């Protein structure tokens, strides 16, 4: 029921044209890239200027073996500060302005990314993600359970993420989506892929011997293909294991159980 009737839904950017001004909007990939680029440029600039200034002055004021100045510090004096307070505060103020405005700017995007409407859009595809040692399970609204995440391109996909054993973190780096998978807790996130193709999801929190191999395939399909695929799924023909679709602690069986029992060795 949560599968959109119109598979070719416009992307979020198009949905919010009026808001696409200075605050980055769009898919997670787009907003990340925009912000990252700005930070990288400014960060490099600040780094080069400050470190360059340091090196320049260290060289400029290098000791030339001249006379010891009269007011030079000497052993046993009580520590006091040197002058230069005005300069100090100017630089401090400048850096404060840069940092605070950068963060405020990104905060606008955070609000957008975390927007209730974005996160819990009524007619979006909703998929439950369950981490276990060492793999991922994806449960669709019809109860279909699979170890490959299939999503339609250009649509917002809601993910409810949890874990059934230890603390994991679910992430698909290329789609810039990531959230913790915590036993007993639900975390929400969303993704939107613009290109069809195969991506890789993986775990980002150390979870035992198989952590480095805790991956899953993510297949971004054309919406029509997705529709066809989804229409032929049901709780019964799950590729992972048949089971209740609600998320939560439950007895494991099938492929997952064997993975878990291997994992306990860890």
């Amino acid at each position: 029921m949560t599968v959109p009737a119109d598979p070719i839904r416009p992307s979020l950017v198009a949905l919010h044209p009026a808001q696409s001004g200075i605050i980055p909007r769009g898919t997670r990939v787009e907003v990340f890239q925009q912000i990252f680029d700005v930070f990288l440029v400014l960060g490099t600039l600040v780094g080069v200027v400050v470190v360059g200034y340091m090196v320049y002055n260290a060289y400029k004021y290098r000791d030339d073996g001249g006379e010891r100045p009269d007011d030079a510090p000497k052993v046993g004096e009580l520590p006091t500060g040197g002058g230069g307070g005005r300069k100090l505060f100017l630089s401090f103020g400048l850096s404060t302005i840069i940092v605070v405005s950068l963060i405020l700017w990104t905060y606008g995007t955070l609000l957008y990314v975390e927007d209730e409407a974005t996160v819990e859009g009524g007619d979006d595809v909703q998929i439950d993600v369950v981490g276990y040692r060492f793999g991922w399970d994806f449960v669709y609204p019809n109860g279909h359970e699979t170890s490959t995440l299939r999503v339609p391109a250009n649509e917002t996909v809601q993910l409810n993420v949890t874990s059934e054993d230890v603390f994991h973190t679910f992430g698909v780096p290329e789609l810039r989506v990531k959230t913790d998978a915590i036993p007993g807790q639900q975390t929400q996130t969303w993704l939107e892929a613009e290109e069809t193709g195969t991506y890789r999801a993986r775990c980002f929190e150390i979870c035992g011997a198989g952590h480095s191999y805790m991956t899953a395939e993510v297949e971004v399909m054309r919406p029509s293909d997705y529709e066809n695929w989804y229409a032929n799924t049901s709780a019964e023909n799950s590729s992972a294991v048949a089971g209740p679709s609600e998320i939560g602690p439950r007895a494991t069986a099938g492929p997952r159980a064997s993975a878990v029992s291997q994992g306990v060795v860890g």
Partner: protein
Amino acid sequence: MTDETSDPRTDGGERVRESRRGAKRTDGGTAAAGHETDHHHGLPAPSSIKRWLVTTNHKDVGILYTVTALFFLVFGGVLALLMRVQLWTPGATILEPLQYNQAVSAHGLIMIFWFLSPFAFGFANYVVPLQIGAKDLAFPRLNALSYWLYLFSGILFGVSFFQGGTFAGGWTMYAPLNLPVYTPNIGASTAVLALLLFVVSVTVSSVNFLTTMHRMRAEGLTLRRMPLFTWTILLTTWMMLFAFAALLAALMILSADRLIGTQYFAATGHAGSLLWAHLFWFFGHPEVYIVFFPALGVMAECFQTFTGKRIVGRKWFIAAMVLVALQSFLVWMHHMFLTSINLEIKTLFMATTIGISLPFDLMVFALVYTMLKGRVRFTTPFLFSFGALVLFILGGITGVFLGAVVLDYEFRGTYWVVAHFHYVMVGGITALVGGLYYWYPKMTGKMYDKFLGKLHFAMYFVGFNLLYFPMFVAWETPRRDFVYPEIYTTWHQLSTVGAFLLGASFLVMFYNLWVSLSTGEDASDNPWQFSTTTEWAIPSPPPLENFPGKPSFSSGSLEFLPDGSDAGDIEPAGPGGREPAATDGGEATTDGGEAATDGSETDADDGEDDDDGKLVTDGGRVMTDGGQPMTDDEQVVADDGTAGAADANAGVADEKATDGGTVTVYDEHAADDEEHGEDHASIWPFRIGLTSFLFLVGLSGLRQGSFPEGLEGGAYLGLTVVAGVGLLWALVGMGREEFHGLEGPFGESWPFTGINNTKLGVWIFLASDVVLFGAFVGSYAFIRVAEGWQNNWHHLIPADHVVLPGLINTYLLLTSSFTVVLALVACEKRSKWGLIGSLATTLVLGIAFLINKAMEWQHLFHVHSEAFPNGWNIGTNVASSTFYLTTGLHALHVIAGLVITLYLIARAWNGAYLDDDQPVELFGLYWHFVDIVWLFLFPLFYIL
């Protein structure tokens, strides 16, 4: 002083004794003569191994810390190199997956806990007392104890590798991976216990340093005038005191989960996983500043010394640090942005995080501008400090990326984080290495080879950036992972090359520092032009007693006044400080309320003259009396030792007694050597460290409250019992030993002028205990809220858990608090039987409390109801776990208090405390605290 001047030469440089003695120093031939002087302090010559086992002198302990920390640097570094080799190509090569996880985890834990902080505290031990003009720390034996607990906790961690493998869940030890279900090795339990022992060491150390720095500064050295390195250590120890208390709670709970089967962090159903994250990061973020601040202090000193300038905006620099220290406790949730915390909290913590980054901007600019118009000398210490600042700036800039939550989402768990915190933390190490070169001449009396020093820096700086910078480029590599995208292979290979270069640079350093011990030029008192702090005004290395006289800043700059002189003669600003041995007795009469002796302070109202008379005429006897009360407190340790955590508690309490004992007048030592009355040697800290280590090795075999079957289990059980007895013996032994530390009055003690060292130590310790209990209560509340505060929770508790036993216990404890007050009144009235009677009543009430509790627990253990067919045990559910563990921790505090009471009674029987009631007063302080804790626990666990 006569014989001391030659001794110190051999005092500083530890392992090199032989080569040094053979060297052609002027006093080379007198080394033997130097050694014989030590007998005044019971301190063997530096060339003997025994010296290093028994020493309590802050400079010796500082050297021990430094050398041990460098050992752990190599340990952690080798693990890092193993990882870098594994990462040469994607996929497992030389290490199995679990071995890799162990290497990752152990590398993090060793570097952060056993290398970084202790390395800084090597300098803190050596330099801070010198900078503030103190002859030693407030509690020298506790300082040695801190060291031995540190060393043995590190060895314990090493042992964990041989018990089926060490902990493999990352240095953050996230729950529930940290439970035996997922990390079943005994070695994993051992690693947790090792950390616990380390935290005890840190707590003891914090109390010691805080007391020292707040109470024992030279006259005229107000807080505002303290050198910056000392300032950073002061703030570091304050943060340590509270942050490590939270970690202590987390580790105690984790140990209970692992060893006796409590259910705090068990996987699902409640928020165990998040609870760990909160507890850990509440400690973990201040920890970042705890490891970085000392490095900042070194940078500040080196920038000033080697530019010949005073720091720009000194007071703002200090203000910025104070701000950071306070705010460090308000940013921890930025480590949890991707957990289920809500947007409002994320926003709040984003704001505090950005807020805490700003003061660092100010500090960085202050350091940079200090160079302007200076005369920058590119010595090795300066190069390292300068390099550290560059690295820190890069670490800071990349940190701002992480402060933007949207970016943080994607950086989480990647090499961006790894690279960022290595730039910051190893940047800090860079400054500390500079500190090692800076103080090396002071500590050893020798100059290092300058060329090799610069070579070290060049290799280090290139290696560092080659190692860590590619991680920013390859940032999409998942953290703690050896499988990474192929396209990053080149970058990871560069990184590995850098790692080996960085490692090799340290070989140059070790070679340089080792060889220079014998062949280096002799260092003058002040080998650096333009240094200002006190350590440069005395010989390199400094004599055992540090100063040629009493250091004073009363006149506006450092002077060494003749021992026994009164600064008041010179400047009224610094009252009080007299040479203790000579004028102690008279002090109470002339002292106008400055740090008085314990005796005169506690009954200031009456009997002052009386006291004084006693002190003067009868000093020896009073001293003997005073010297013993530690025993009682020592036994506290004994009991608490079983709980691990409370070691610190006891240790502190012990020192209180020590001081109480030394408050008065010197014994025969004073007679034959008036100037050097303090003791500098005690074997007991070493013994406590050793037995604690063995005890915990034994305890690590526990699982679900019982030892495994068979020979192995028997061995663990046997070791636990034998070492437990040994630990008790060592604790009692340290308590019974007569040991004379430093006595007041000291110079500047604001704002603690009216409180003596011992009492301040107890107060500071109790402050950390408040955080410990706070974390326990907070954990309880957190879990209960997650379970459902009312309905669900009550289903977890049997109907037999009623209010009455708790209510009775409340009355018992409150009454016992009252009787302790009566005991103090009896002391003041000099009523021996009143004192004994009151204390005995306290003891009886306390025992009644415990019996009542035991009956209650016994009943609950054997409840037979429908819901709880197998009783309500510690591992039955979260409600039982929180109930037994929290009230159990309290009960341990009660038991400790009762042991002290027993001791006080025994001593009172022999007529003690009528002249000096401080031990009774301090016990009362502790006892009231324990009662107050109960007043919180009772409603939480019985009524609500």
